[in-house]
């Protein structure tokens, strides 16, 4: 029996009148690396936003439980303080804020050495980066790795990773993949959003999502095979009609 760290129970959410999540149910097991894969528009980012409690992503129905506590109505920072956090696909830039200060903002251990350590973990040279600003002078890949470093410094219990491979070059990607395994070894649970089979191959457990629903979950190879054969090209329209038939 696996320990569940996060439970999503019958989550429904609409954005601008359009139904995006249609009764999502899932359990995330502690200490594993999970991924949710699906085509563009499946609702993956919306799901993660709702789990994190971002403004504008309040579910109409359903609950989110973190370590057994109902967090559906908690604010973002309250969820973060409990050990749940999010690394963005395209992180925000901050004029005038140094990389070191940004990393240590939410860090459990707020010392210079820790900032150096986490930067090294994501493959960035602390000497070159700590005093730089988290602004537009960083490339997309650099900014993303700094975001990851800051998340690691928080020592969270569960990390939501939005498209961890986007904007990352091949060399750095290997570093990110080994990082996923390091996080797992440290007992940190990871839940990644992806539409990349390369990322999927790095995880323990997968979910397949389409049209706002979880279509399948479990074995990574099975999910990967289904995604490769049935979702590329996307069968979205057919699935919508099936989904509508099922709900009518």
């Amino acid at each position, binding site marked *: 029996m696996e320990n569940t760290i996060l439970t999503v129970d019958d989550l429904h959410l609409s954005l601008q009148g359009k139904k995006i999540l249609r009764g999502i149910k899932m359990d995330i097991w502690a200490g594993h690396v999970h991924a949710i894969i699906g085509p563009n528009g499946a609702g993956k980012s919306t799901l993660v936003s709702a789990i*994190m409690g*971002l*403004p504008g992503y309040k579910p109409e129905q359903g609950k989110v439980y973190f370590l057994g506590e109902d967090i559906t109505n908690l*604010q*973002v*920072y309250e969820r*973060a*303080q409990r050990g749940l*956090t*999010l690394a*963005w696909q395209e*992180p*925000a*830039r*901050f*004029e*005038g*804020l140094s990389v070191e200060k940004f990393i240590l*903002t*939410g860090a459990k251990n707020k010392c210079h050495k820790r900032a150096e350590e986490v930067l090294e973990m994501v493959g960035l040279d602390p000497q070159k980066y700590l005093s730089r*600003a988290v602004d537009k002078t960083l490339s997309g890949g650099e900014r993303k790795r700094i975001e990851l470093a*800051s998340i690691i410094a*928080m020592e969270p219990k569960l990390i939501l990773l939005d498209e961890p491979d986007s904007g990352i070059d091949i060399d750095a990607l290997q570093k990110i993949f080994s990082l996923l395994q390091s996080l797992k070894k440290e007992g940190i649970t990871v839940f990644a959003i992806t539409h990349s089979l390369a990322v999927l191959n790095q995880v323990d457990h997968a979910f397949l999502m389409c049209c706002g629903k979880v279509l399948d979950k479990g074995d990574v190879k099975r999910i990967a095979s289904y995604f490769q054969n049935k979702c590329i090209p996307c069968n979205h329209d057919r699935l919508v009609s099936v989904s509508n038939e099922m709900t009518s």
Partner: protein
Amino acid sequence: MSKSDTALELLKSLGLNIDHIFTDDVAKIQVHQNKVVGLHLVPGLKVDADEMEDGIEAEILIEKGARIEKPVHICFGVLPEEGLQKVKLHIHAKENSKAMILAHCTFPNARQVKHVMDADITIEANAHYAYFERHVHGPQGGVDVIPNAKIHVQEGAEFSTEFELIKGSAGNIAFEYEVNAETRSKTEMTARISGTNDDHIRLQETVHLLGEYSTGVIVSHIALKHQAIADVENTMVAHAPFSRGHVDCKEIVVGNAQAKAVPIVLVKNPYAHITHEAAIGSVDAKQLVTLMAHGLNEEEATDLIIEGLLSKKQNWQSMIKESYI
């Protein structure tokens, strides 16, 4: 209180460590109300100060070819709760000279203090003149700060100025700077101001790019809270071919504060080029939520974003440390 005691009080109000008195190679000019309470010069720098009834008038000369290694420290202050301080400055950086000025204006107990500065600054050919001005105000506001400067940047010269007021209550600030920039000169003017309560901030900065290949940048970053008001009008006029300019106004508004920014760009020559950016509004939602996902509440996240916006644009802090500590 003796002059030296008054000078020490001024330094204390700035938060400077008075155990580390400036070394002999650092020039200093300290003025309390209408009295010069501290004066130390270094080779290449001449100062002639006259005490007036309600302030001082000073001529500051940086001699031709002089390279003043350590920043010159100027301190203007009014320690009592009430007072008027008029400062008339005539600054002349002669050809090929180089100097940096670190100016502190301190009004730590102000309830009804008025500080008026009128400056004319000439930076001769190929001279470099940098002026960093930090204001230290008390929490009550009660200060009217009215600086007015006309600056002439001659051929190949460089002028940069940075005005900082990020602690204490700004009070009423109304400043007006106008620069005439000649051929191949460089001008940079930055203002970083935090307004709270009923503070009223008015900035009017103008750069005329008169000479070919002259460049100018005007940056104003302002954060406002409570009922504070800011009114910014930055103007860059390109008169000459191949002149380049940029105007950057960013203002963050929180609570009932109000901000108005008018970046004016005027190009009078088809070979000149000016850009501008202006952003006024509440704190960026994505920045806010990113920091909240790091565990900061909304207020803490807002303060950190504002701190970043108002952070130094030049490495003045390290210069201060290197020179004075």
